[in-house]
């Protein structure tokens, strides 16, 4: 059967069918617009435009340089992660969800694991040290994510130098991730019940050093951008969205806080022990791109404060478990990092191969079949760099999820593009989208 495709006409050749991808209905669209008296142009920006913050397609209707209508086209990065998790165990789900919002993997993992733990009813059994490591990793991740937001945001508006500084700092954070989990991104480090492994020796000292360096180096970008006349002219009063708009559109994160609302789940609905950390929720009341930029800039310092406190706590909890005690959930061994990133624990291999057949069977069942999760549904949420990352999990009592749904802040917040851009100039739509900081992996999942 040959389907007629308006966007890709097909011709048969000796080598097989050849598709030529064209603009599709572009010609008819332009003809239609030409018939009206107004001078309106439809501009198709993306999905491969360098300033659209990923494979995002913006369909803009212009009158001169003014945008009369803006629509976002998404779905180019849809990978079916939610469907895939239904065919894997609850633990394997972590490996999938970490790839959704690829700039904030730890947040996806933590939200998912908090949900699974709520379903299992073991929320209060998670060891303190595991929660401390989660907080530490989340705040490091917030820094690396904000660094991309600031760097690429500035880049898209034509300021090239901030990007170099921002990615320089981001690398330092990714080095810490590599040291702790073996991987720089998509670590699958947070697992239902705790974390995959304890911090390696000397990690806390290294992190303290990194914090010092970061605090010093953040000044470079601050000097470049805060109060910079050109930067302010490009960002002040741009991408306006007030509190009423944010509320009805369900916007969370820095965009909501730029409307003056001090809403941060770490304060309003603490998880992982955030109530024990001392930090401030940053807000501005400008409702514009500049305000959102300032918020991200200042949140970096708040994250550093939390990391320092987490380091103090981790010093005290040295040697405590990082996985729930329940042997029906936790894997029987703590794996250690080998030269290949993730390695095996020699001690455990000695036990299962040499002394205990039962341990071997137990390990095998837990890893291949997984643990059972009582039937029911839960919603768990964390404050990711982009807002509320919520997870809706449904279990039917089996070893695999019945349904996993991510309420991605990028997906939700990107809807604000129209509200922010319509009535403004075409050059400002870039700033508006950059201030939402959508990550298309999260938008499309």
């Amino acid at each position, binding site marked *: 059967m040959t*389907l007629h495709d308006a966007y890709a006409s097909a011709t048969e050749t000796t080598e097989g069918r050849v598709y030529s991808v064209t603009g599709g209905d572009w010609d008819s669209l332009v003809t239609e617009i030409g018939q009206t008296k107004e001078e309106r142009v439809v501009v198709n920006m993306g999905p491969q435009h360098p300033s659209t913050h990923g494979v995002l397609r913006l369909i803009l209707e212009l009158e001169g340089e003014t945008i009369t209508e803006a629509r976002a086209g998404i779905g180019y990065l849809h990978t079916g992660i939610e*469907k895939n998790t239904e065919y894997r165990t609850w633990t394997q789900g972590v490996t999938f969800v970490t790839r959704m919002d690829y700039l904030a993997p730890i947040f996806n993992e933590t939200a998912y694991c908090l949900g699974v733990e709520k379903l299992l009813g073991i929320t209060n059994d998670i060891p303190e040290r595991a929660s401390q490591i989660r907080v530490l990793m989340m705040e490091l991740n917030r820094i690396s994510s904000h660094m991309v937001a600031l760097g690429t945001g500035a880049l898209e508006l034509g300021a090239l130098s901030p990007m170099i500084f921002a990615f320089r700092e981001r690398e330092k954070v990714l080095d810490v991730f590599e040291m702790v989990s073996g991987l720089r991104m998509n670590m699958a480090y947070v697992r239902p019940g705790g974390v995959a492994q304890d911090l390696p020796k000397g990690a806390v000292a290294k992190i303290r050093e990194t914090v010092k360096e970061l605090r010093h180096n953040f000044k470079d970008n601050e000097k470049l951008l805060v109060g910079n006349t050109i930067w302010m002219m490009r960002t002040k009063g741009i991408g306006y969205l007030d509190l009423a708009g944010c509320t*009805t559109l369900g916007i969370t994160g820095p965009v909501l806080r730029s409307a003056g609302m001090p809403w941060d789940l770490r304060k309003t609905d603490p998880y992982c022990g955030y109530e024990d950390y001392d930090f401030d929720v940053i807000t501005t009341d400008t409702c514009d791109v500049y305000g959102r930029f300032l918020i991200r800039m200042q949140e970096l310092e708040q994250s550093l404060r939390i990391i320092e406190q987490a380091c103090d706590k981790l010093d005290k909890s040295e040697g405590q478990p990082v996985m729930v005690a329940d042997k029906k959930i936790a894997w029987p061994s703590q794996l250690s990092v080998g030269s290949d990133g993730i390695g095996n624990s020699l001690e455990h291999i000695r036990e299962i191969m040499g002394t205990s057949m039962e341990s071997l069977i137990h390990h095998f069942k837990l890893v*291949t079949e997984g643990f059972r999760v009582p039937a*029911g549904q839960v919603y768990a949420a964390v404050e990711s760099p982009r807002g509320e990352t*919520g997870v809706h999990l*449904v279990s039917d*009592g*089996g070893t695999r999820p019945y349904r996993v749904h991510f309420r991605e802040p990028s997906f*939700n917040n990107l809807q604000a593009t129209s509200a922010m851009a319509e009535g403004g100039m075409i050059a400002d739509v870039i700033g508006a989208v950059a201030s939402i900081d959508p990550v298309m992996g999260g938008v499309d999942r």
Partner: protein
Amino acid sequence: MNENIGMFGASGSGDTSGFGGLVRSAANFGSSERPYGSYFDEVADELERAYPEFSDAIEKVIVDRGELTLHIKREKLFETAMKLRDTESLRFEVCLGVNGVHYPEDKDRELHAVYPLLSMTHNRRIRLEVSVPDSDPHLPSLVEVWAGNNWHERETWDMFGIIFDGHPGLTRILMPDDWPGHPQRKDYPLGGIPIEYKGATVPAPSERRSYR
């Protein structure tokens, strides 16, 4: 109520992984009794006060794992949502979207739509759940109540085939416009289509031997 055997529906094969012997079943929850605990009683009381027809709109109330779920009849969904948003003592001004769950064994209630609500004013969370039969998958759109539900409803239509009446432009959002079927439904196989690459065809995951 719902019983599935095997990991990938394996039957009579040389499956040695242990997945083939798995039996899983979903429990059906009955309605919870008062008191619900936490702020849930207050929410229920306030809703009853603000919305006299509430007893007619509600199917059941479930309190599970510290979360309140209100099962609403679809005819009353829009009104209930309006009351939840506008009543001062409730003020659920944020809806965190909608997502579907497909229960093929739940006769005439196959498709469920789940709305997590958030009240920033009172710092409370509840959940609305609505079910529709597969043969008549219509729900009122809540875009008028919470504009942010626009894309979420499009996603639920795309993935589950629930039609939201009154939506300003209910089109597919993640899948291509001409995609047949709704991929997140349980009767839709994983992968679903063969993949063509450089002249060779890789069968869909659901058709591969290791998954069968």
